[in-house]
């Protein structure tokens, strides 16, 4: 369970244009700095925004990651919907607080 580090990476990315540049140029070297499991690494690398949502990433972090990887607003919303359809309900974090 490393949702904390998954979100920490996105938090740092959102705050730091230099890290964003490094991430675009050499994603593995940035990812190596965080304690992430295989599923999280895959979701970040593909990138699979829908899976990141299902893993429990807060939308206030995720919407900026979606923009960073080139998704429009509508594509971002669609990716989350597709993620829930493919992987099931959100597994952790604030959106798993109660059944919707």
């Amino acid at each position, binding site marked *: 369970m490393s949702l904390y580090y998954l979100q*920490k990476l996105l938090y740092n990315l*959102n*705050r730091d244009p230099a890290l964003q540049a490094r991430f675009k140029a050499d994603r593995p070297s940035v990812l190596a700095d965080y304690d992430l499991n295989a599923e999280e690494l895959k979701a970040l690398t593909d990138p699979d925004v829908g899976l990141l949502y299902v893993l429990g990433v807060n*939308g*206030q972090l995720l919407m900026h990651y979606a923009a960073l990887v080139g998704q429009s*607003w509508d594509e971002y919303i669609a990716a989350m919907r597709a993620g829930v359809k493919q992987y099931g309900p959100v597994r952790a974090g*604030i959106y798993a*607080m109660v059944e*919707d």
Partner: protein
Amino acid sequence: MPLVFAGIGSHAPGIVNRAERVEEKRREAYYAAYRRMGQAIRDARADALIVIAAEHFANFFMNNMPAFAMGMADYYEGPIEDEAWMRIARRKIPGNRDLSQRLIARVMDETDVAYSEEWKFDHGIMVPLYFLTPGFDFPVIPANINCQGPPLTPLHRAWAFGRALRHAADAVPERIAVVGTGGISHWPATPNSGKINEAWDRDFLARWQKNDKAALLSYTDTDTYRDAGQGGFEIRTFIAVAGATEGCTGELWFYAPIPIFAVGCTVAVMRLAQS
């Protein structure tokens, strides 16, 4: 000086960066209400504006999450978001370190508060300022209530924080305005983005306008999440403004659910005694 202005308004990136997706007349009516609030702050001859915000992991994260924080710097920077995405150019926004320090010291008499000598404003502050102080040239003091990372700041503590801010504002010679910014019901940045529970919003705003402390503090997070989404947790910022204006009643200047903005769009003010 006694507090010279108190109000609340919604924030959301979409209010600015998806503007063209709302009919002009409809969005301009909302923007006009926000600008009217900006004029009211200037008419009140405020020296500084405290923005009580619900920060979204721009500055505070679960490595060290404060229940309350206030800025204590001579300038801040924003937006933290990509400028092209946010459609607001990145800039410095003036603060007032000395005033912050005096306010924070007084707030600490009643409420434990973290302070920060740097702060990157996200849309939660930049979108309201875009309308309130379009030149981004008015001194701002940011304040944050944890509405994002559970355990969240309890509602009654948000109220107490507002009351402490009021006492602090009363104790300094400057004329202080305060604006709480949040959403009421909304499901921002999720697959349910655009969902708004208008009945819930209007009920909350009725409680806020009456400044009914018991009614405002009676929500549970479980109920709020069910009825108003995770964005509903941001009622804390509006409750803090109610705590800052205990005994006053409010006036709703604008409310409309605008789904593509992903929030019930609100502007409301408290009627303060003339000062």
